[in-house]
């Protein structure tokens, strides 16, 4: 045996020796890297194998027998027609076409949606179609067309309509049923679609268009929703997330449930939608824009345009939006439409734009309370947007203003005990505080709202509460009631944050809070949207608006209470009057003077569908009473006769059409009636639907990863111990 001294004999450093040493070092390094790569590869293969092995039953359960690519209902990004059958699994069949015809006259739109759907198979089917419509759509007509025959649907109480439909379905008659799931979400069911047959459903609705005045020019916008996509996906931090928002009244006929598996139609079969808009603004138009679709605009004089999609049709995967700006100086100060109703009353729709001059008067000092949602669901992009929006808002405060910031998750915290002057020091402090906010925890919104809405409402200040949230809450009704009770002289402005905020909640909360709703979808929109909101907030508003109707008339006007107006917002009133002449006088406090405007009923333009719009407004107002604690039975009793009289869709009334001649022979089977099946929904763009609670933890995942890591660590350790100090010397 040799001594260590022998082994450590060093040869004189020669360039040759050095080169060899370097070469060996390089080889060693490469070998080591290869080993590491192989280990990592082995690790991932093993991991993948285990995951695959354990997950097999899941994927096996999901693959459909048909060989179609399976469509998970959650993948649905658009309204889809589903057919239900006895023998075959349910699968989605595309509409052959959806045609949308929109006629705009001034502030009104009349839309006809034609859904043509076909049954490509040799069996009898029932089709169920879930689709979105604008939130304020007054659906007042439904027709079913089979070949040349047209069957006009009638409005019945929902339960009765369901019974009528069910009976027709069982006796083999063709029938159609249109139900309202949410104010902006509808279901069409069509029974007994014969083999290789087409049934056409036509529905019509009316709506008033969104109108804003931006920098002195009027801008209308029209939206036709098609997207039924983004919805809440419990993301990271879901352990602390409020999920399971349940809106009441989700009950639907069990018989109409559709069962999975649902099959993904081929790409080229996706619902094509054709949209045509015939636009008559009533005044000269400056510009027409469609931000999301390429359109072809044909000019027809100063006031009229015809708009069609450049590509002819589009897959229903994106909301269609159209905005048009009126030529400078031509924005009407008031528009009045009237229609005589069948009951002898006169229905009127009044849109009034307060004139701009009062914007130059001194602005009232404000007390602004910012409320920021820092719950777990805001984690990621959303909290970044919210922080940015808030910091920007803070910097825009005037030294005369007062402010406070409240953050809430599982509980709420305020920056100051009470609102403080917006001095540079305070603003700086607040901005720093906001930058440190992190999203985590629950969504206890009620406490924060209470805090924000409590405070001295001194008359010399405008009190504004600006609420930044994604609205991921389940107790909407409770919160609406709270806002209603506590509001006082404050105004609540909601700012929707994130890719899929619960805008149903936020719109309604702003409405209840007599403010407005702003939606920020992307970080780069923060600046533009917040500026818009702020120019609105900073402008002195028109308060205490009063409407004086012609003397001696009996009037039912909605909304009963007109909200305060901010810069660029019009007053929209729907009324039913018992006389057709006279003057309507509207007045409001504009800072230091009282603004008054008079419109003569005799100057009204003849409009159609005004009665429907009025009734829809009234139904909305009645439904809102649910928030203030009115029992549902009472509301239902008030809504049903009104909806039936005006032939309107509502939560309690549905359209039903039955073809008298039986179509399906008694011995031919229809889709399994008793089969409990499911319909995927939560499809609408605004994610008005809740979700079922999450029911799993990552504990197994951790267990697996932990186990694998432990094994590898042990293996590595053992190898290290066994390995002699120098393998090459041991040989």
């Amino acid at each position, binding site marked *: 045996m040799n001594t260590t001294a022998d082994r450590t004999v060093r040869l004189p450093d020669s360039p040759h020796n050095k080169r060899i040493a370097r070469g060996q070092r390089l080889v060693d390094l490469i070998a080591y890297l290869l080993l590491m790569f192989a280990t990592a590869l082995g690790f991932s293969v093993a991991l993948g194998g285990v995951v695959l092995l354990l*997950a097999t039953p899941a994927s096996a359960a999901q693959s459909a027998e048909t060989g179609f690519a399976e469509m998970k209902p959650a993948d649905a990004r658009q309204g889809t027609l589903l057919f239900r059958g006895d023998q075959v699994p349910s699968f989605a069949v595309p509409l052959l076409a959806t045609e949308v015809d929109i006629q705009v006259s001034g502030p009104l739109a009349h839309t006809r949606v034609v859904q043509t759907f076909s049954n490509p198979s040799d069996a009898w089917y029932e089709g169920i179609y879930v689709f979105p419509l604008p939130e304020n759509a007054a659906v007042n007509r439904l027709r079913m067309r089979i070949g040349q025959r047209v069957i006009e649907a009638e409005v019945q109480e929902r339960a009765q309509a369901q019974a009528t439909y069910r009976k027709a379905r069982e006796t083999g008659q063709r029938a159609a049923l249109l139900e309202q799931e949410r104010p902006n979400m509808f279901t069409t069911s069509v029974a007994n679609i014969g083999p290789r047959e087409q049934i056409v459903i036509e529905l019509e609705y009316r709506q008033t268009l969104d109108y804003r005045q931006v920098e002195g020019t009027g801008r209308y916008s029209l939206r036709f929703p098609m997207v039924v996509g983004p919805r809440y996906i419990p993301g990271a931090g879901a352990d602390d997330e409020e999920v399971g928002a349940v809106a009441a009244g989700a009950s639907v006929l069990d018989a109409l449930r559709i069962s999975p598996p649902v099959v993904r139609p081929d790409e080229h079969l996706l619902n094509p939608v054709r949209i045509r808009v015939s636009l008559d603004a009533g005044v000269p138009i400056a510009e027409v824009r469609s931000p999301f679709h390429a359109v072809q605009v044909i000019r027809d004089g100063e006031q009229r345009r015809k708009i069609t999609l450049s590509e002819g049709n589009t897959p229903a995967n994106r909301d269609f939006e159209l905005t048009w700006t009126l030529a400078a100086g031509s924005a009407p100060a008031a528009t009045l439409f009237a229609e005589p109703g069948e009951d002898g009353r006169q229905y009127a729709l009044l849109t009034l734009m307060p004139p701009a001059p009062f914007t130059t008067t001194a602005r009232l000092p404000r007390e602004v309370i910012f409320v920021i949602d820092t719950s777990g669901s805001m984690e990621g992009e959303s909290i970044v947007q919210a922080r940015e929006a808030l910091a920007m808002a803070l910097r825009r405060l005037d030294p005369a203003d007062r402010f406070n910031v409240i953050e809430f998750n599982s509980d709420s915290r305020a920056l100051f005990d009470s609102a403080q002057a917006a001095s540079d020091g305070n603003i700086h402090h607040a901005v720093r505080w906001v930058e440190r906010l992190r999203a985590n925890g629950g969504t206890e919104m009620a406490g924060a709202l209470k805090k924000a809405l409590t405070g001295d409402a001194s008359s010399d200040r405008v009190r504004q509460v600006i609420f930044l949230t994604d609205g991921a809450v389940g107790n909407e009704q409770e919160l609406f009631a709270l806002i209603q009770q506590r509001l006082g002289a404050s105004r609540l402005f909601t700012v929707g944050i994130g890719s899929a905020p619960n805008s149903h909640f936020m719109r309604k909360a702003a409405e209840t809070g007599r403010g407005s709703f702003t939606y920020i979808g992307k970080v780069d929109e923060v600046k533009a949207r917040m500026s818009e909101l702020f120019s609105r907030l900073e402008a002195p508003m028109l308060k205490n608006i009063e409407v004086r109707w012609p003397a001696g008339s009996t009037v039912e006007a909605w909304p009963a209470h007109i909200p305060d107006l901010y810069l660029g917002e019009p007053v929209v009133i729907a009324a039913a009057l018992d006389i057709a002449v006279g003057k309507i006088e509207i007045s409001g406090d504009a800072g230091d003077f009282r603004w008054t405007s008079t419109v003569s009923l005799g100057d009204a333009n003849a409009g159609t569908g005004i009665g429907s719009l009025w009734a829809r407004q009234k139904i909305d107002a009645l439904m809102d009473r649910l928030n203030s604690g009115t029992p549902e039975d009472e509301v239902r009793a008030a809504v049903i006769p009104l909806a039936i009289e005006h032939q309107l869709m509502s939560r309690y009334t549905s359209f039903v059409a039955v073809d008298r001649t039986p179509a399906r022979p008694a011995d031919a089977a229809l889709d399994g009636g008793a089969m409990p099946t499911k319909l995927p929904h939560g499809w609408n763009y605004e994610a008005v639907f809740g979700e079922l609670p999450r029911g799993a933890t990552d504990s197994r995942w951790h267990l697996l990863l932990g186990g694998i890591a432990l094994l590898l660590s042990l293996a590595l350790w053992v*190898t290290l111990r066994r390995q002699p100090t120098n393998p090459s010397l041991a040989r």
Partner: protein
Amino acid sequence: MNTNDFCHDRGYAEFLGVECAWPANANLGTPRAELVRRHTPARRLAAIAALTLAVTACWHLGQAGYIQAKAWFAQVLIADAWSRTLEGEREARPWPWADTWPVARLRVPGRHAEAYVLAGASGRTIAFGPGYMFGTALPGERGNSVIGAHRDTHFAFLQWVRNGDLIELDTQGGTTVRYRVSNTEVVDKSDTRVLAQGSRTRELTLITCYPFNALKAGGPLRYVVTAREA
């Protein structure tokens, strides 16, 4: 001095005896010390990797253990709150900072399963026990009561529940309602129809994630067990 003395290591396994006849530098090999030094960084890296893996393993196992421990330990604390509830205390909190309270006790005698149901079905709550979903009928009352829980903790037993199985539910009032399982199905998480409040009878809807043996949480499917009053 012997020429061989000049040789580097005659006891060396690779010593062929010729090195000394021609002790060229190239054939002298590298002194051992240098070899050892050169291998040290690699060995150290491997040791660090082993250690990192061990720490990762501990962390993951800890996470898994924490989730399970939280689920089972909370039930012990809730048992106490439940007995206070039965004595008439309203919203008895199992621990002082809890934002939930027991509303019922669920038993499935055939599967030896038992759990206290908490108020609220948020992720926070169901980490501790099955959660009753606000907005649905209170457990034991007329209407559809919806309860959600994790498939790998409190509701793991749901995978073995079959139609006709008996479910017993003790209410806050001290009564016991007996249900029979009438249906089991798999639905998408967006399918809120199972939450429908149409019925006039007592119904119980138990919801958990599906598939039961999936590794990760967050899948879109839910397993729904419906039971009607027996």
